[in-house]
């Protein structure tokens, strides 16, 4: 029984490697130990103190995602790359959230998010997921399932909706209310769609994705209502990244969370901007549970 699940995981990983080999996407490995913690507002790094016994003690962090390290490679001309690795996150709890899990992360140069979603469908089909593909924009699902014009509604009106639903309105930022209503009203409906991409997020949720025509060029993949992947049309310039890091750290400050040092080693690699590319992170453990 136990061996069967090991065989299943091995088979899936082999197929993933084959998929990328055929498309000449290069497998890479990047450092897991980091000098800086993540600046992501709602993701926390696990820290550890090393080299104490030899008198050169320092605090290091386990990577929460290989994103910045892989982007360093992209900035230096790596071309299309992917990585399968363990990632580590602090303060995770629940049946779907773990302190350590396997991530597949890959970047395709010159792709927009629709090309990347199409590429992922090919990958999923190769892994045996043959369901009908739904692609719905964030605005579309909110209008269809909740009759809310999510891209244009302001925070006060969202609070009124939340309060009518008997939900908390104790939020500072509009994106948190958008997510609350997404989790409450939309996500349960996605359980009826076996394979569904949600794309074009409100710009308040852009994080490291480009904003075009007032929407963040991002997508998420849901398999039977479980979020499995998160993809972006990636920001390219040093200034844009710096701005996001500062903004995220300001938010962390308001929660009295650990403030990350700006990752100088990353920014210094962006003297030339990243090539235009899209990238996606796929939770392998969650994906495995959706494959028979």
């Amino acid at each position, binding site marked *: 029984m136990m061996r069967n699940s090991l065989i299943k995981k091995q088979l899936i990983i082999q197929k993933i490697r084959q998929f990328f080999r055929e498309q000449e996407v290069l497998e890479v490995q990047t450092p897991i130990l980091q000098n800086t913690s993540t600046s*992501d*507002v*709602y*993701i926390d790094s696990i820290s550890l103190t090393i080299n104490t016994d030899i008198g050169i003690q320092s605090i290091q962090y386990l990577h929460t995602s290989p994103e910045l390290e892989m982007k360093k490679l992209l900035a230096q001309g790596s071309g299309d790359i992917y990585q399968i690795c363990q990632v580590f996150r602090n303060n*995770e*709890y*629940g*049946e*779907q*959230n773990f302190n350590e899990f396997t991530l597949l992360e890959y970047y395709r140069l010159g792709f927009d998010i629709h090309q990347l979603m199409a590429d992922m469908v090919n990958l999923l089909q190769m892994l045996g997921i043959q369901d009908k593909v739904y692609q719905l924009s964030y605005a579309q699902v909110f209008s269809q399932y909740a009759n809310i014009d999510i891209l244009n509604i302001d925070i006060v009106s969202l609070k009124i909706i939340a309060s009518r*639903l*008997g*939900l*908390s309105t*104790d*939020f500072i930022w509009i*994106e*948190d209310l958008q*997510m*609350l209503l*997404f*989790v*409450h009203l939309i*996500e*349960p409906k996605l359980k009826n769609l076996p394979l569904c991409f949600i794309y074009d997020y409100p710009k308040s*949720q852009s*994080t490291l994705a480009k904003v075009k025509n007032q929407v963040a060029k991002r997508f*998420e993949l849901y398999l039977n209502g479980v*979020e499995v992947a*998160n993809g972006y049309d990636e920001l390219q310039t040093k200034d844009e990244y710096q701005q996001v890091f500062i903004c995220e750290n300001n938010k962390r400050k308001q929660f009295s969370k650990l403030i990350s040092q700006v990752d100088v080693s990353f920014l210094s690699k962006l003297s030339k901007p990243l090539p235009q590319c899209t990238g996606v*992170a796929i939770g392998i453990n969650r994906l495995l549970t959706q494959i028979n």
Partner: protein
Amino acid sequence: MDKYSINQFKNGLKLMLDSNPCSILNNEIVKPGKGQAFNRVKFKDLITGKILIKTFKSGEFLEGADVMELDLQYLYNDGNAWNFMDPHSFEQYIIDGTIVSGVKGYLVEQDICIVTLWNDHPISITPPNHVILEVFDTDPGLKGDTVGTSGKPAIMNTGIVLQVPLFVSIGDKVKVDTRINEYVGRA
């Protein structure tokens, strides 16, 4: 009353929600890719019996509800109130009709029911999963007709109406599943 963090919500935990005592049925933790963690909690309002879903920010606290479940024996109805007794302590509980109304068709004298108390007051009664009721009135069926799939309505001695097979006649004792209000078989 104690306060509970949402991450401590286990199925069956009794909490105060919208000023009613509720029982947790399911607690699902959802963390959007780049967002904060939420808990989507399914619960039953113990006063109204309604099943509801709410989404909370992870880390919110809610007040526990002083809810107790007792196995009490149903004794009799004196016209106004329904009398129950704790078969161990012999303590009697008088419960008024509004609380009994949804289940009175399943209350059979001597049966043990689960009575839910909130702050020591009864708020709901759960009859046994199966009870034996007597047929008070039904159309006469043809002997030997066991093929009919739809059956016929029958009024029980407790006042409720059930679909029963055609061969069931007045005075028969029948076993009833109280959760789905269905005839199970002849007792």
